[in-house]
């Protein structure tokens, strides 16, 4: 006889599961019996259908049952939760605000890090595009640049069959555009070949790729510039003028590249224009690297980066002179690395990975602190509810139910905190964008990822925060909690919670020390004598220097009583343009050679900048011609030359930049660069006056606005075809320390927040202990303890932990800040008083936090705490 068919297995399993609490039944067997009957009498399929229908019916009923009771209990939980929030308003407020701050900081940092990481992600072939970078081997050490000689890409296209898609681009960050009568200065004019569009896609609004760039003197505008110049994007065929020299024909319009790109541009100018753009043809030279001339290649998948780099050596030897081929070597840098690697530079700003890690870890630290604080406060609050928990237990609540209730309450708090955090983030975001600079534009709703992130935070925080307090407060037998209310006399729980507060104070202590040291270094840098006058100086670019014309300009300016002196030079002592070249000196047969920075200036430069003349004399005339070469050197040059004193240098013959001449004077050293770098040897000369590109103007700072507008007026008379620009020297010097001042603000706010959150945690802890020891305090008072003695007894306990936290934090902070200070050639030393100040600050702040609760406890009437009904 054939065995009767059996019912579908999964259905059977389901039934068994639903029925698992009852043992005296035979549901499964009974159903089996009915099943075989149906399949015998009708069909197997009908039997299966019947069986499944029964199952689903049972499941539906079960779910409904559970949901109904679950809902009833949830309603109860919700009411209780809201009641306890209401009852402990201040407590709940502190709790929610603390957590909201933590979450908000974390969210802001997530937005920022996400923004930075999304750099260049709009480029479709990002993974396969590489930049050719150059390693320069010098006797002083290796240098790096992201630039390559101009013909590199063309040579690669012809030499490497795999590198057909290589392109050279050049960024000019200072061009003047004339449209009709209007003049504009643009800082992102990119010269590109047609090949550019095959690597980096452009989104064409007008024109096509093929039309563009077959001819010289064509330009493609981005939407931004098209709108700025013409008001619409219908621009094909329009003509604009570049640097007062060439007319460019507009061949198309593309949409703006995103802000997050390492290849930013406002306009694209055809490569062939470059040849005419420079009078001398630099485009064929292999002995010259401009950092703004870069090569990008699209690497086919079958070419390995290592094998390609190995082939570069013979490539270099083929094209370059042997000297250059020996010292320069090409390497590949992935496009994705450009934004994060400060070594090679980028057209856009660079964010180091370290900064991103620092940001992320500060965010996580603050979130962790907020969570710790939340756990402390929640546990403290749960103690007030031990009676409720005990009662629930007596009435038959399972422990898992209680845990679920408390976790549910926590997640309610978390939800409220997240909403508050969203509000906070929304209001802070504009300030943060401004603070970050670089046109950063962070948005909350840029995509759904922030909600994904918030979801994770929600689960993590409510899980993390719910588990400990709920387990801790449901651990004890109901009799104990009902009888006494507080059964938290266990040492272990104390150690746990105290160490949570300890961690918080370690973190805040480290941040305070960091703040103090950074502030000290910033103050040191702003007070430091740079060796030249840095205040009251205004610099104004001069398009063309001709001595007669500029002297006329100067005398017109000097008529203004607020203008005290004017000098023409290549640039201020500290300026964006620097030029390094070797200096050679023959001393008793030996040739000393070292790099120096050169600067060009007229005769008034020394006086206007108050740089001391140590020996010899300064230039007597504004501009010499090349037949009369004179050098003025800074004191460190004479030291590097190996001379015993500056006096000795006067009259010595040196070769700078392959030009021989005599030293006529020695001036004091000054800080040409930021204080990160050592003093650099500098040589001044006054021939090649066409390089005097800036007027240095000393103002008396009385009527600044009037003086500047008068300067502009006169300037425009002399240079009607150009755009007036100006900058204060002290503002430029300040901008050299932008990273540091941002870091300071960041650390300051982080330490403020961490102290705030730490104090919230401490507050919670004190509340617990004061409640627990209320009887002890009462007894002490009855037996004659004074309020002062009880106060010191209680606060000593906390200060002990804070002091311990300081001791732990100091070495870590010292080490970290010591490393940070190594960035500066001129720096402060870390003294013991910094630790003294930050330590006592933490002590005082925590003492104040503790005092509120402790004084309340000591001044309470002992009858209240000792009465026993």
């Amino acid at each position, binding site marked *: 006889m054939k*065995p009767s068919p059996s019912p579908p297995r999964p259905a059977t399993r389901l039934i068994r599961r639903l029925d698992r609490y009852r043992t005296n*039944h035979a549901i499964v*067997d009974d159903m089996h019996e009915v099943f*075989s009957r149906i399949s015998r009498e009708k069909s197997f399929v009908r039997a299966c259908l019947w069986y499944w229908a029964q199952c689903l019916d049972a499941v539906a009923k079960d779910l409904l049952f559970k949901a109904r009771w679950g809902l009833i209990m949830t309603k109860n939980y919700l009411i209780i939760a809201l009641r306890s929030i209401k009852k402990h308003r201040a407590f709940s407020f502190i709790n929610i605000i603390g957590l909201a701050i933590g979450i908000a900081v974390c969210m802001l940092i997530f937005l920022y890090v996400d923004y930075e990481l999304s750099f260049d992600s709009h480029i479709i072939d990002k993974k396969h595009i590489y930049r050719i970078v150059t390693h320069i081997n010098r006797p002083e050490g290796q240098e790096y640049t992201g630039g390559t000689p101009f013909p590199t890409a063309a040579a690669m296209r012809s030499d490497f069959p795999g590198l057909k898609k290589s392109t050279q681009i050049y960024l000019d960050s200072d061009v003047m555009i004339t449209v009709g009568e209007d003049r504009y200065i643009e800082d992102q004019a990119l010269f590109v070949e047609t090949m550019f569009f095959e690597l980096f896609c452009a989104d064409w609004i007008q024109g096509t790729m093929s039309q563009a760039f077959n001819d010289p003197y064509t330009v493609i505008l981005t939407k931004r510039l098209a709108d700025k110049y013409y008001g619409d994007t219908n621009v094909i065929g329009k003509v604009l003028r570049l640097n007062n020299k060439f007319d460019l024909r507009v061949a198309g319009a593309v949409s703006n590249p995103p802000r997050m790109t390492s290849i930013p541009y406002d306009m694209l100018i055809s490569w062939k224009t470059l040849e005419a753009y420079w009078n001398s043809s630099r485009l064929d030279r292999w002995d010259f690297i401009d950092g703004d001339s870069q090569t990008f290649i699209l690497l086919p998948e079958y070419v390995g980066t290592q094998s390609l780099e190995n082939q570069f050596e013979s490539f270099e030897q083929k094209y370059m002179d042997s000297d250059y081929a020996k010292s320069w070597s090409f390497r590949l840098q992935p496009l994705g690395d450009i934004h994060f690697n400060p070594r090679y530079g980028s057209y856009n700003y660079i964010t180091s990975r370290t900064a991103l890690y620092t940001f992320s870890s500060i965010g996580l630290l603050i979130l962790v602190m907020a969570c710790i604080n939340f756990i402390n406060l929640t546990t403290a609050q749960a103690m007030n509810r031990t009676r409720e928990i005990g009662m629930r237990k007596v009435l038959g609540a399972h422990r898992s139910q209680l845990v679920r209730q408390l976790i549910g309450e926590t997640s309610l708090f978390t939800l409220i905190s997240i909403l508050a955090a969203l509000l906070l983030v929304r209001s802070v975001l504009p300030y943060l964008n401004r603070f970050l600079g670089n046109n950063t534009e962070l948005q909350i709703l840029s995509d759904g990822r922030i909600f994904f992130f918030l979801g994770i935070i929600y689960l993590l925080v409510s899980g993390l925060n719910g588990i400990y307090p709920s387990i801790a407060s449901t651990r004890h037998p109901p009799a104990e909690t009902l009888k006494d209310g507080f059964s938290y006399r266990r040492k272990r729980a104390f150690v746990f919670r105290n160490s949570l507060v300890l961690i918080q104070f370690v973190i805040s202590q480290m941040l305070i020390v960091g703040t103090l040291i950074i502030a000290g270094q910033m103050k040191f840098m702003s007070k430091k004598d740079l060796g030249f006058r840095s205040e009251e100086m205004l610099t104004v670019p001069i398009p063309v220097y001709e001595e007669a014309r500029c002297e006329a300009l100067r005398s017109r300016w000097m008529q203004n009583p607020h203008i005290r002196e004017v000098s023409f030079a290549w640039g201020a002592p500290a300026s964006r343009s620097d030029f390094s070249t070797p200096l050679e000196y023959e001393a008793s047969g030996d040739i000393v050679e070292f790099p120096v920075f050169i600067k060009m200036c007229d005769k008034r430069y020394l006086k206007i900048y108050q740089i001391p003349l140590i020996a010899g004399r300064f230039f007597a005339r504004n501009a010499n011609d090349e037949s009369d070469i004179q050098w003025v050197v800074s004191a460190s040059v004479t030291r590097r030359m190996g001379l015993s004193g500056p006096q000795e240098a006067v009259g010595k013959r040196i070769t700078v930049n392959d030009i021989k001449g005599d030293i006529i004077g020695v001036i004091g050293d000054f800080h040409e660069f930021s204080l990160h770098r050592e003093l650099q040897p500098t040589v001044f000369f006054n021939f090649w006056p066409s390089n005097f590109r800036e007027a240095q103007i000393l103002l008396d700072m009385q009527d600044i606005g009037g003086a500047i507008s008068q300067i502009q007026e006169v300037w425009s008379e002399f240079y009607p075809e150009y755009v007036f620009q100006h900058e204060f020297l002290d503002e430029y010097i300040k901008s050299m320390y932008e990273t540091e001042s941002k870091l300071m603000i960041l650390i300051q706010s982080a330490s403020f927040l961490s102290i705030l959150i730490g104090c919230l945690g401490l507050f919670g802890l004190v509340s617990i202990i004061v409640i627990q020891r209320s009887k002890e305090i009462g007894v002490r008072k009855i037996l004659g303890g004074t309020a002062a003695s009880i106060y010191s007894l209680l606060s000593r306990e906390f200060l002990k932990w804070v002091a311990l936290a300081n001791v732990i934090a100091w070495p870590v902070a010292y080490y970290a800040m010591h490393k940070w200070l190594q960035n500066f050639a001129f720096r402060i030393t870390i003294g013991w008083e910094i630790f003294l100040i930050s330590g006592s600050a933490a002590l005082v702040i925590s003492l104040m936090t503790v005092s509120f609760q402790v004084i309340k406890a000591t001044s309470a009437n002992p009858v209240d705490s000792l009465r026993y009904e």
Partner: protein
Amino acid sequence: MKSLSVNAQIFMIAIWWLKDEAYGVRIRDKITEMTGRRFTFGTLYNTLDLLAQKGYITSRPVRIINQTGGNKRVYYTLTKAGLETLQKARELQEAIWKGINSCTFQKGEK
């Protein structure tokens, strides 16, 4: 002694009819035969549990061997208390229906 619900009466009468054969499947079939109602096994056992808890019926699990292998059945029997309650319920029924031949809807009544 409390009065029985109609459902309980149906279950107990079905068990009474089935005598020694009163186990899950049979009880369910019998009820369908008697009243046309079809219970799920869940409802069936819930009601049986309730009656057993009140002491009106007792249960007896049995493992039987048949051609298809082992099979578990739970047999139910009425207790003395059960029978008495059932009897009371019947008397109550008859008492409240006494004198009524039919209670169909008639014109004029509200």
